[in-house]
């Protein structure tokens, strides 16, 4: 039975997954802040301070048209951005998962080498105990 092994190297995925986690957090928090700081006040101002007649009568270059532009364009990229953040998280999770088989393989190798030693040690301990009891 082989009891000489080299300490296995950590899988590369363990170095890469924190990058995706941080990227995911940055994107999701950015999306949330844009929703909270840009979209919500703009929607509040556009829908709450103007009757439909005023909104419909707004001309190109007016503040109302500018708000309408913000309200129609930002959500079109904000949701994909949030999904991008979720996807970054999922890539991180996938990388973590993919490192587990390599770790289990390493663990199997070490256990394979270690078990004869553990059995030997426990036999020695049992023999010592029986000698003491005699």
């Amino acid at each position, binding site marked *: 039975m082989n009891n000489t092994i080299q300490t296995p190297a950590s899988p590369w995925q363990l170095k890469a997954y924190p990058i995706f986690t941080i990227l995911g957090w940055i994107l*999701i928090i950015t999306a949330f802040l844009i929703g909270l700081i840009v979209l919500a006040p703009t929607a509040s101002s556009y829908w709450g301070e103007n009757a439909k007649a005023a909104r419909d009568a707004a001309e190109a270059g007016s503040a109302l048209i500018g708000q309408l532009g913000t309200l129609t364009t930002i959500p079109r990229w904000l949701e994909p951005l*949030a999904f991008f953040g979720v996807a970054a998280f999922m890539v991180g*999770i996938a990388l973590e998962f993919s490192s587990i088989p390599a770790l289990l393989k390493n663990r199997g190798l070490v256990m394979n080498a270690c078990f004869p030693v553990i059995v030997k040690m426990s036999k020695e301990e049992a023999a010592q105990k029986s000698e003491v009891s005699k």
Partner: protein
Amino acid sequence: MQNMISKMSRMYPLFIVMGFMIVIIAFIVGYFNSQAAAAYFAESLLIRETTLIVQRASIESVGLWMLPFKFLGIGFLLGGIVMALRVIIENLIGAGKEVLSNLPPEKRPQMPNPPWFANLMPVVMMLGLVIFLVAFGVGLWLSGIARDVFANPLPSIDAAGAGSSLLAGVQTIHSVDGWLVPLKFFAISTEFLAIMMGLATIVFILESQIKLLDGTLKSSKAAS
């Protein structure tokens, strides 16, 4: 505290079933809402604006609580996954201790303490669920506002001036929607963070066990 979390973690199938049930209920309600919308838009504008106003209010309000409700279901599912990871972590630690218990006490290496994020994992999971519940509560509140607003004919809503309660309702629906959608994604990422913490703990335990066994092997070689 940790014992209570351990006991709760074993209830993970319940969370997964609850999450799945919520998503199925959302699908069924969504299907019936779509049928109501089909029946509503099959009528002329005159009928829609006179006799079918209640139906429109219902269609609009259901649409507002439905999305956070579906996300709540996803939240329970992700929470169930986090709890299952916790069970795996405990079993891995238990198996490691069992293997090492075969060594004589003086040669038995000390198991390392779990990393700081292992204890934080259930807290982050619960935080994510709370955010999902808050989003659902806000969705229910918005649906109530929508029910009131859309109980009026469209010309009345369109004619509502600044400062009127109708326009305030429209304002609330649109402005809250601006942050509610990203908030749900924030809740999902919080649950994902808990999953990542769980997986990182599993990785830590596996690596620690490899190092411990490797150390035991090397020390026994050095002794012999």
